[in-house]
């Protein structure tokens, strides 16, 4: 001890650093560990793709490819089953379309209010509240749609069926509002204040600043949030399973029952389809279609936010 304390700190540091092999071991080990973590995410995607692909191929051994894409009838449970995917796609897009008609205006409006008008305090309270809204289990939304929204809508719209596209569509929209609001708000608040000030200094009102400067500047982020919203609406499962019915069809009438790709998967998983039947494999084919759809949406969002990003 006596000896060591005579050494200056710098000398002691030099002594220590000479003998330290462990830190260089960590230096080599940790990147590998982290890389491994990162690779798992890629493996997950590969896992999804292979799982879906494998069983989808089995499905197409029994059901001609052409039927799947050319037929507009989806009746897998009929004595002469029909496996045309389009009715499910149609139902999915119909519900997602309704959802976006709710989510885009309200989400964007909320984002604008929070980013451009609200005080810091309001923003700080509302954002977590909206996050709560986004975190409510979808099963809860599903029963809310079926037992609350549908009866109200039926009172207003006489021809509305018990199962319809409208009610789950609206509720999915409501569920997505926070996501769009939050992502758009992020995009808008990252528009530098200096640009806003530039517009104010020209005598613009707040609305003129928002609509003509901030929104265009944040457009890539805002549109990306819409696309992500659509992708979420397409993938939403329980709300449509509960409130949308199970009637695949090609109509675009929102008052009637529909079936979405996700709802079909749940129907079969919960249902009676025998092992090894084409119905069983069909959920993978539908899952694959769903995956391709959301993948396309996500790539689109990615592309938009890359391609049109403004560097301030």
């Amino acid at each position, binding site marked *: 001890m006596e000896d060591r304390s005579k050494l200056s700190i710098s000398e002691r540091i030099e002594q220590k650093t000479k003998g330290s092999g462990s830190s260089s071991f960590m230096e080599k080990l940790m990147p590998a560990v982290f890389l491994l973590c990162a690779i798992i995410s890629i493996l*997950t995607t590969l896992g*999804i793709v292979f799982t*879906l692909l494998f069983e989808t191929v089995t499905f197409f051994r029994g059901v001609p490819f052409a039927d799947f894409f050319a037929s507009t009838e989806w009746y897998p449970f009929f004595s002469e089953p029909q496996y045309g995917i389009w009715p499910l796609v149609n139902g999915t897009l119909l519900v997602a379309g309704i959802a976006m008609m709710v989510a885009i205006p309200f989400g964007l409006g909320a984002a604008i209010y929070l980013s451009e008008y609200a005080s810091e305090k309001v923003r700080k309270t509302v954002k977590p509240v909206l996050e709560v809204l986004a975190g409510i*289990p979808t099963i809860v939304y599903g029963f809310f749609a079926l037992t609350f929204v549908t009866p109200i809508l039926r009172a207003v719209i006489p021809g509305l069926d018990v199962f319809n596209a409208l009610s789950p569509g609206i509720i999915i929209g409501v569920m997505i509002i926070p996501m769009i609001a939050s992502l758009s708000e992020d995009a808008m608040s990252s528009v530098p204040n200096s640009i806003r000030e530039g517009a104010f200094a020209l005598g613009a009102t707040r609305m003129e600043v928002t609509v003509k400067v901030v929104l265009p500047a944040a457009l890539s982020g805002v549109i990306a949030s819409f696309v992500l919203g659509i992708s979420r609406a397409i993938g939403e499962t329980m709300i449509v399973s509960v409130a949308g019915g199970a009637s695949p069809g090609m109509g675009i009438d929102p008052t009637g029952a529909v079936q979405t790709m996700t709802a079909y998967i749940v129907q079969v998983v919960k249902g009676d389809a025998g092992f090894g039947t084409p119905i069983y494999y069909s959920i993978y084919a539908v899952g694959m279609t769903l995956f391709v759809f*959301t993948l396309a949406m996500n790539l689109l969002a990615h592309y938009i936010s890359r391609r049109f990003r403004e560097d301030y």
Partner: protein
Amino acid sequence: MKFADTTVSNERYEENTQRLSKRHIWNKAFKGICFGAMAFSILMLIVLLIRILTQGIGFLSWDLIVNFASRNAEDAGMLAALAGTIWLMVVAAPLSFVLGVGTAVYMEEYAPVNRFTKLLQTNISNLAGVPSVVFGLLGLTIFNRLLGLGASVLAGGLTLSLLVLPIIVVASREAINAVPTDVKQASYAMGATKWQTIFRIVIPTSLPGILTGTILALSRAIGETAPILVIGALTYVASTPSDLFSNFTAMPVQIYDWTGRPQEEFQNIAAAGIIIILLMLFFMNSIAVFIRTKFQKRF
């Protein structure tokens, strides 16, 4: 020369009060509309909560928490589901946390700029958008069948952890990215190695953000019904899971089952169950908000 011919007269901008007041009205109306949009969202939340509370609050009881499911609504409880959900979290939370943070650190601190990194990035943002029911199919095929885990807590937890992984990665990357380069440079400038800088500066500094993201991601996982249904969670269990290979049921599955029952009382029990799950979510969200406001450093 260039200033002489004033083609645009200054008067043009001497706006008559009418035009100006019109612009003011527009401005007000626009603000109102945007406020309305925000208020609508919050209103929906309130209506939803009131609806659930009015239906379920009378049926909240201690029994609901300590009893197992039963055919009699009066005796029915969600102990198994509650325990199942907690077990799922116990599996999913550390796994997705470690994997998520590891991935984020790799991407933010180590990844070279190359194709692999780009692929990784695209891959993760895509994974975040894959519908949960598809994750269910993944879990069913790989964990249940291929690895032979069956409909066990482990299979469920693994499935959920993959489901929330991308969300955690994105949140963690943001948090790590928010650590100022300044501070990292200070560490390097003292002769710290990369790992030392990451371990002692980057991770501790971004931890609040990472934790917040993780909690929010997990609170989403708690409510996920579809993937759990797909991997075949049980519906009636009169015991709590004893190990990773036990069968389980989870709260949303239990609620889904109750709402499908013919007896009216079960609908009410379901509403009470929803209240419990919402309480759990509020609790987790408040922890997240607390961490965020309390520990997040402003640079």
